[in-house]
């Protein structure tokens, strides 16, 4: 692995290696001295073209726990209208000797541009690009789900996958980079994914994705589910007629108190409720659901640091034991980043 751009080109073995490494990193976080010398002398740049304090500090904590030097570069705004281009920024960071660039960008594909051009030679980590992908979010979600799934099976999570786990991802799939990265990765790990959304918030072409699609959250819950992941929905989407009102959205697609009760009534005592944050309480998730013992929201945040430590460590330690070519066939619908013109 040279870059981490998409979960679509992660092989099963590479995905499990990242998750296993993250388990080891997690142990570091529980020690009194939460620091490893692994990346001493290496420079990690957090290049953020879009505000995201949570993701930025998560990456910052991860890099610092590995003893890397961290530079935060907030380049918010349009690179063309506000001066410097992405190319110039990348070349500047290259000249400063960045070993890894963690990039968050509002434009889908911006991390791919950094990886595919000769503007910079650093390892590129996609920290969320437009409505495309957010691979470390999907990895931390998978990490959280794997711990839960292994605990239910009574095993250690090291080396395991998510075979047989039923995951529902509900909400604004159309605009969600989290949904895309999760669909590819969960499929690779053997989970069965159902997307639940209003038809307006599903992309044309979703029928080719390796998952099921439903318009009915209640039916999806009734069919049995081990994890329900609620996606953030922006109230402004209402103005573009994606749905009639926030109240109607909440009633039909939100995880409200009735649905929380339904899990109990259906006897699904082990089903977890996930959310990538930040949450719109009362819109896509009720306060009771967010705060219930089923909620893994805070565990996800905690696990994010471990997963990002693992990604930085594996990319910067130059570990190339397993070629990315051993891709899972389930990823056929996912994009290849190897392709060039």
């Amino acid at each position, binding site marked *: 692995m040279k870059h981490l751009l998409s979960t679509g080109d992660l092989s099963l073995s590479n995905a499990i290696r990242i998750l296993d490494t993250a388990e080891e990193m997690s142990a570091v976080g529980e020690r009194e001295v939460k620091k490893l010398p692994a990346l001493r002398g290496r420079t990690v740049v957090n290049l953020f073209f879009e505000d995201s304090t949570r993701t930025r500090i998560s990456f910052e904590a991860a890099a610092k726990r590995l003893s890397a030097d961290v530079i935060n570069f907030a380049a918010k705004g349009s*690179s063309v209208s506000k001066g410097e*281009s992405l190319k110039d920024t990348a070349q500047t960071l290259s000249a400063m000797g960045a070993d890894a660039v963690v990039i968050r*960008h509002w434009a889908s*594909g911006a991390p791919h541009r950094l990886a595919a051009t000769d503007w910079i030679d650093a390892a590129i980590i996609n920290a969320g690009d*437009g409505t495309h992908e957010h691979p470390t979010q999907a990895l931390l979600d998978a990490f959280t789900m794997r711990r839960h799934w292994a605990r239910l099976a009574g095993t250690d999570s090291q080396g395991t996958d998510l075979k047989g786990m039923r995951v529902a991802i509900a909400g604004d799939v159309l605009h969600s980079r989290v949904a895309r990265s999760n669909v590819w990765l969960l499929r690779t790990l053997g989970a069965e994914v159902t997307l639940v959304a209003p038809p307006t918030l599903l992309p044309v072409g979703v029928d*080719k994705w390796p998952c099921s699609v439903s318009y009915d959250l209640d039916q999806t819950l009734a069919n049995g589910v081990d994890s329900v992941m609620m996606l953030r929905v922006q109230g402004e989407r209402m103005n573009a007629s994606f749905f009639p009102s926030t109240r109607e959205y909440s009633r039909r697609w939100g995880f409200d108190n009735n649905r929380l009760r339904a899990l109990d009534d259906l006897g699904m005592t082990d089903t977890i409720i996930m959310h990538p944050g930040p949450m719109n309480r009362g819109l896509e998730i009720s306060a009771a659901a967010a705060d219930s013992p089923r909620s893994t929201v805070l565990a996800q945040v905690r696990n994010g640091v471990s997963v990002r430590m693992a990604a930085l460590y594996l990319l910067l330690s130059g570990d190339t034991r397993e070629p990315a070519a051993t891709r899972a066939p389930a990823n056929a*619908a996912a*994009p290849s980043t190897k392709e060039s*013109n």
Partner: protein
Amino acid sequence: MAGNTATYLIQGAAILGGDPADLLVRDGIIAEIGHGLSADGATVIDAAGLVALPGMVDVHTHLREPGREDAETVETGTRAAALGGYTAVHAMANSTPVADTAGVVEQVYTLGQAAGWVDVRPVGAVTVGLAGEQLAELGAMADSRARVRMFSDDGICVHDPVLMRRALEYVKAFDGVVAQHAQEPRLTAGAQMNEGDVSAVLGLTGWPAVAEESIIARDVLLAQHVGSRLHVCHVSTAGSVEIIRWAKERGIDVTAEVTPHHLLLTDDLVRSYDPVFKVNPPLRTDADVQALRAGLADRTIDVVGTDHAPHPSEHKECEWAQAAMGMTGLETALSVVQHAMIETGLMTWADFARVTSTAAAKIGRLADQGRPLEAGEPANFILVDPAARWTVDPFKMATMGRNSPFKGRELPGKVVATFFRGHATVLDGALNTPHPDAAATPAGAA
């Protein structure tokens, strides 16, 4: 007017890919065509193995001048055209200032004459400033020295149905044609690529086929209603081909164009996020490519138009969403069409002459272009080596634009010579000299 051109004897060229013959070019016309013609006083060109075709006519070129001379000028764009086998181009109106007055179209026309590489026929804007609110002075542009016959807001759709109706009606007064950029604006707000399987994965805002097809459907019905002439720019979807086929069956006076890139490339290339593949209308699916080829072969689509759209490198070396839309095309069109249409057995060289020259000249009402290769006709023709193979290198092109989506591809066919009004603008596959009449033309604004 072309009295000071040299005399050429072209020996053994396959006329439209058929039987070989000699062509004697003198005083700007094809003086004789036959066998064993006398070489007396003529420069002899051995054309054995070469195909003679009428000079290509592009109905859709962006020359960028005036306004964006950092992207292209009339001089560089027409050099590229000559190298690509063109003897006439239609210069689109989206310059700065917009070509919406007699003054601007005469300026472009004069620049073309002064360059002397091809006939430059300016396209007039349909609406003032391409703003889609008020008709430009179409009559003044038609009556100007540029003799504008094609009007287009290309780049922007004339989406107001009443304005489109009026434009179609009005141009009947001077045998004009409205060339529509079919794109329903509300359905394509923020659109980045074809809406479909690939956009779903890439998270790029989709440009649905229906946004093109719904405008074409409306416009053919409007053209029928008011009895006018409609041209549809850069048709890109299978559904559009079907609608145009239906309209032609009903006798509606509609013509349509397809670009070389839509005949070959698909939206799969966007997976690279390389903005060299960003264009409007966007690259579509393989099913669309096949339908466009079939439509061009069965005459539903009349012509190939390049939509040559050069951009400075900084407008492509950036994020996909930031990048400008458009691709260069003048110097690759012949090869791409040969590859997509002739080598697939869908068309002959005679068909090629129709779609790249004859039909295009008819749409633009160019009397001296797209003529048969016969004695007494203006000597606008090209010699092509169909057996040549070459690898596309944008840095070796005459256009200032380096944004060729065919970069690195091996393509067939090479323009060996271009004759423009009896003068060889291209010889041995390289630029020769502009037409000698150009030197007598004062450059600059009219």
